[in-house]
């Protein structure tokens, strides 16, 4: 097995890129929607065979064991080539949770099934009354013999209709004095009578998000991860890497590339007003990348990132939205049209970009919440 951390960054980048170019199916590049597992299964098989399903996991559990620097390169190349992340909740969230807080039995049982995608996971965090104020969650899991009995509702559960399992934050002690207390992590099967999934149609007409209803659903007590009633601090610990990931330049860079292609085809670069706005947006992307590098360097030096990393997410999502709005402007009379607009040999789906950019300032902690965090934790206000 290659010691990835032992080779140079450049060499690693070349290896990763070469693998994607050789093996990743052309028709899956830059997929505009989140695929069901069946759609990308053939790619997952290749990735699994290569041993590259879980770049961040330790080698002993079947991961690549990448350090931060290599990990960022892996994700950069993935995004750059338009490699779909796949159904990676298991890899990104459940695996790290179990590796960090799980029992040996949990590790032995669940981790291989995540790698093989025998289990497909979704994440049950948000509830109708618990969005920005996540600690307000009410879905309960009460002990009944060897089981938890789960009642309540989760919402915005991405791709729950194509998942076999859910890992969720539930309230195990309704009498805890603070709402951040009495919350636990449990794993549960979706395939049981007490679980009901309904898709939510977005204003873009898509159905990636779901509501999940629990009506006396059950899961064995063995599926509690970590200590009971300590779920809140575990959830926060899981966020640390996600916070730079959610602020990475990829989405905005891809959107800028699309804008450029589209605007060249539409002759918009002959218009000085567009040129000024394009340059503004492009510099917003380029300069964000400079700040991103600063944080990435911190990670590479083995430092822990502080709350200030939130500013990457604020900047990049708002830039992404502006780019998507510029695309609409360039489209002119086609700005309300659904589907790809042809320029030369390529189709650019302007409206899809616009839609996709909308919720980025809402999810992952809305930008208002991020500003609250920065104000308090970084500026001391």
């Amino acid at each position, binding site marked *: 097995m290659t010691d990835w951390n032992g080779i140079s960054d450049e060499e690693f980048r070349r290896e990763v890129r070469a693998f994607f170019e050789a093996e990743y199916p052309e028709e899956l590049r830059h997929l505009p929607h989140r695929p069901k597992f069946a759609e990308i299964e053939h790619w997952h098989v290749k990735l699994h065979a290569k041993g590259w399903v879980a770049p961040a996991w330790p080698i002993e559990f079947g991961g690549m064991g990448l350090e931060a620097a290599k990990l960022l390169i892996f994700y950069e190349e993935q995004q750059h080539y338009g490699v779909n992340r796949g159904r990676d909740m298991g890899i990104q969230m459940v695996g790290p949770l179990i590796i960090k807080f799980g029992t040996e039995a949990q590790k032995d049982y669940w981790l291989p099934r995540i790698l093989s995608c025998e289990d497909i996971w979704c994440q049950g965090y948000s509830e109708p*009354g618990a969005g*920005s104020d996540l600690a*307000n969650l009410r879905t309960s899991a009460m002990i009944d013999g060897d089981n938890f009995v789960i009642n309540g509702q989760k919402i915005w559960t991405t791709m729950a209709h194509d998942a076999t399992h859910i890992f969720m934050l539930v309230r195990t002690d309704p009498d805890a004095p603070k709402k951040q207390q009495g919350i636990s992590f449990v794993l549960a099967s979706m395939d049981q009578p007490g679980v009901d999934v309904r898709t939510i149609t977005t204003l873009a007409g898509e159905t990636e998000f779901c509501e999940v209803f629990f009506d006396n659903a059950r899961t064995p007590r063995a599926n509690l991860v970590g200590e009971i009633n300590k779920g809140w601090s575990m959830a926060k610990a899981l966020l640390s890497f996600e916070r730079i990931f959610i602020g990475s330049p990829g989405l905005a860079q891809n959107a800028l590339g699309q804008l450029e292609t589209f605007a060249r085809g539409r002759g918009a670069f002959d218009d000085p007003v567009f040129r000024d706005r394009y340059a503004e947006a492009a510099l917003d992307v380029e300069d964000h990348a400079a700040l991103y590098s600063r944080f990435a360097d911190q990670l590479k030096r083995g430092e822990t990132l502080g709350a200030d990393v939130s500013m990457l997410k604020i900047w990049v999502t708002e830039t992404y939205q502006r780019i998507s709005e510029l695309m609409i402007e360039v489209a002119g009379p086609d700005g*309300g*049209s659904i589907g790809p607009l042809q320029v030369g040999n390529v189709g650019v789906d302007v409206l899809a970009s616009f839609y996709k950019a909308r919720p980025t300032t*809402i999810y992952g902690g809305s930008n208002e919440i991020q500003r609250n965090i920065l104000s308090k934790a970084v500026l001391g206000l």
Partner: protein
Amino acid sequence: MTMVQDEDLRLLRDSVGTLLDRAGGLGRARRVRDDDTPWDAGIWQELAAAGVLGVAAPEEAGGLGMGLTAAGVVAEEIGRVTAPEPVVPTIGLAIGLMQRLCRQDPMLEAAIAGDVVLAVAWQERCATGLSDDIECRFDGTTLTGSKDWVVGASGADHILVLAEGPRGSVLVRIAADASGLLMQTRLQSDASELWGISFADTPAEVLAEGAQVTDALTNAVADTTALAAAELVGLSGTALVLTLDYIKTREQFDKPIGSFQVIQHRAVDMHVSQEVSQAAVREALAAMDQAGSTLERVRQASRAKARACTAAQKITREAIQLHGAVGYTDEFDVGLLLNRALVLSAWLGDAAFHRRRWLDANETEVAAQ
């Protein structure tokens, strides 16, 4: 042009508003969309019977002769509930052209009465988008070429087409089922359709020819542009109301999110944008009713559309953000408003386009003085 009294406008607003609310209000747009029909023929008849389609048309042609100010009231009400019927294109383009070019044609009265539905095909596409030239040819009896961005064609009986004829610009009429006619339909975000239409030796009937055609078109397009602005004012008003209702009731951290100062100030900015937009668009429509020159009408129309697009985009996008995740679902009405704002902003030129036109017109006016 008759000066319309405030009281008449109030009555008009009430009657159109009541009619649309009784029909189902904002939710109807979603129902019509999910039924896969372009619009509701029954409501169309009701609107026509209430005089809505002829609100700005001269009385001798069966209209109410109340001018653009009154048409703006209608457009605001249409926008308020995002009614899917093509009221603004019909008033502004179809009837707007016929009342200027062929006032005697019996189809004008039929259109005002809602018995005949007309679409207007005047724009053409080139490689980079909208073309500046008219390539569509009329040889005296038939039409050859293609048009694009035709609005409201899905339910139309006839199509009025702008072409180049033997004696310059010509406006012709073709039946929706005429021979040699091919259409390509594109769905828009609000579930309305845009048509690209091509003609090959399609039989067509002349309505008017020469310089009067381009002049009438300039004026009709200006009218329609200003009415689209009014429609945007109506829709952004609803987006604001929905958002205020939502932030007063939605609780996070044990209090309504509308009690957070940041949310409050953003709601205030939405409100101020809305008030400025409404005041500006209404003033522009009134000025167009009084205007002595086509140039002044074009200037005011561009002013109205520039403002209304800017405000509606800001307000609908902020509305989504303040609704949070639910704003992004189809279940909440605020998405209908965002989707319609996209279509109305794209139609007939967006804010940047109209700022440019407004300044050009301003300078031409100053130069002429």
